[in-house]
């Protein structure tokens, strides 16, 4: 899962980035509205954390710009203004949820997880595929109830495929959604991680669709 964080306060930006990275997300950051708008417009993100008060271009304008361009990724607004009139304005501009500053990082993570999950059409925090069970909140994977140890890269890959269960996911899409923009796209890391995952999980869980990509089948 790849997340864009647009926040002009460098400390807060770093904190959110660290927390999200730790939570298993690939994170891109932007420090002003224009940069954020450009990244959101050109890169495929699974969710965006967007501050409202931004230099160059305010958050609501950025959001409206995205929605006008047909971008549908879930957007979590960060706002210091927590009156309902402000929230209503944000939601009407196309936001999916808001978190009022000052917030607890756990709350931000919980809201973001819920947004990503909802966008993928999952109602609960747990996604299953055959014997494999992914706890989105805790970042834990079990097979037939047995806990499996995964590295963060392996977890990201599995999580993305589980979220998009039943859909064929191309290697390009995986690269785009699992790594931030600085990642070297030409490497064959995806194949390497898929190989490692297959060793840890029942082999038939991740199917290769020749010429197209990978898929976890619906139950």
């Amino acid at each position, binding site marked *: 899962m790849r997340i864009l964080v647009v926040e002009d*306060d460098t*400390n*807060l930006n770093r*904190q959110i980035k*660290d*927390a999200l990275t730790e939570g298993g997300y690939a994170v891109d950051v932007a420090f002003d509205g224009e940069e954020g708008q450009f990244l959101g417009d050109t890169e495929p993100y699974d969710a965006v954390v967007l501050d409202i*008060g931004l230099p160059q271009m305010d958050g609501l304008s950025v959001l409206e710009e995205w929605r006008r361009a047909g971008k549908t990724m879930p957007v979590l607004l960060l706002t*210091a*203004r*927590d*009156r*309902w*009139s402000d*929230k*209503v304005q944000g*939601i*009407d501009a196309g936001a*999916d*949820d808001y978190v*009022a*500053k*000052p*917030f*607890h*990082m756990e*709350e931000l993570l*919980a809201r973001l997880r819920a947004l990503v999950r*909802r966008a993928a059409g999952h*109602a609960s925090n747990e996604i299953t595929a055959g014997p494999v069970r992914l706890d989105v909140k805790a970042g834990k994977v079990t097979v037939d109830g047995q806990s499996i140890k995964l590295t963060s890269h392996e977890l990201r890959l599995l999580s993305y495929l589980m979220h998009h269960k039943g859909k064929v996911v191309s290697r390009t899409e995986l690269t785009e959604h699992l790594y931030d923009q600085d990642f070297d796209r030409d490497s064959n890391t995806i194949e390497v991680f898929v190989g490692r995952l297959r060793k840890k999980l029942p082999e038939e869980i991740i199917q290769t669709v020749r010429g197209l990509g990978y898929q976890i089948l619906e139950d």
Partner: protein
Amino acid sequence: MQKGSIAFWLFWLSVAWLVVALAGTAFLLTGLYSRALETNLTNQLKFSIDALASATLDSTTTDLSDVSLRDARFDRAATGWYWVIRNPSGDALAESRSSIGTVLPTIETPFDDDNYRADTLTDESGNRIRAIERRVTSEGLPLWIMVTGNLDESVALVEQFRGQTLTVLSAVGIALAIMSGIVARLALRPIGRLSKAVEQVREGEAETITGIYPREIAPLADEVNELLRSNQQIIERARNQVGNLAHGLKTPIAVLRNEAAAAKGTPLAKAVASETEKMSQLVSAYLDRARIAARSAVVGKKADATTVMLRLARVMEKLNPNVTIAFKRPDASLPWFRGDESDLEEMAGNLIDNACKWSKSAVAISMQTERVNTNALLLIKIEDDGPGLSDEEVEKALRRGVKLDEKVPGSGLGLDIVKELVDVYGGSLQLKRSVLGGVLAELRLPSARLGGLPPRSPT
């Protein structure tokens, strides 16, 4: 009319002026009348003298006893109407029948160039008389012809005239005083209208002073409007500054708080965590307070409750995809909310948010008009199918400064700001048991008189 009022002063000033002017008029008229009477009397007396003189001069004998005047007034005794013809030594050669038996006083002043002299004397009966004497020479003999008339009669006439004049002028004065009272009232009526208009602004029924005023007070109305505008601006600015400060503080607080959370366990982290918690509470408390304090500036505002609630319901459904919100659309006659739109949004938003948080799946919103005496209230009902509240919890929830449960994400019930706003608007908030099983929140708010009708355009 009370003392200290303009109408009072106008009235009494005009009354005082009327009294002076009318009294002066009465005095002047009486004086003129009295002078006219006196002139008339003098003319009459002179005419009589001339008649006597010509009778005397026509007389062929020196015996003047048959000289007489045809005027009957000179026949009755003691009336003050006398005539006498004397020689310079004072012997009466002829006299009126009225003066027979009395001694007429004599005029002491010298004759003028026309051989006349006049004086005001008193006869034996005590009448004040006007006496005029002419000196003539008849056949070489000097004769003094004196005729007198009763002055008291004239004085009585003048007195009578004065009485009538005073009566008439008093009546005129009273009529004028009443009129000036009415005029003062009428002239001051626009001021009354202006004060009504200002009152309406204060009551929140109008945003500015409207209406056409006379040239004298139109500038006052304009000034009041200008004052309202600048007041509004100052408050708006102050409110924005407070808001900017408070909101600006939130990001640094968030940073500190997150930093402390990352370094969990160290004494520094603990101190920072607890202090940032306090700072954050202070910031939101003062933000709320600033908003409420600015509320008194919200005059003449109204909001369409239906639109606001529809918008909130839409937003809440997006925020809570697991909850179905049943919005019962009110009919078009529902009055508007008398107050600031964002305040209504804040009150209803918090209540719906609570309902969504606690509900299992269903929230219902309805609105209606509630009439209490002549007053129409806007009643907003928000209910959920959650666990509900016990009587004790309800009592606690409605008490100031108490938060019910912090377990549900996004703070407690958020009722504090709702309660404060409800108080500011003089509304009420009740928490009851809903037929859905959860809480039924009843929010009663003042309604705007005009309702949803647009202001009528003049035709």
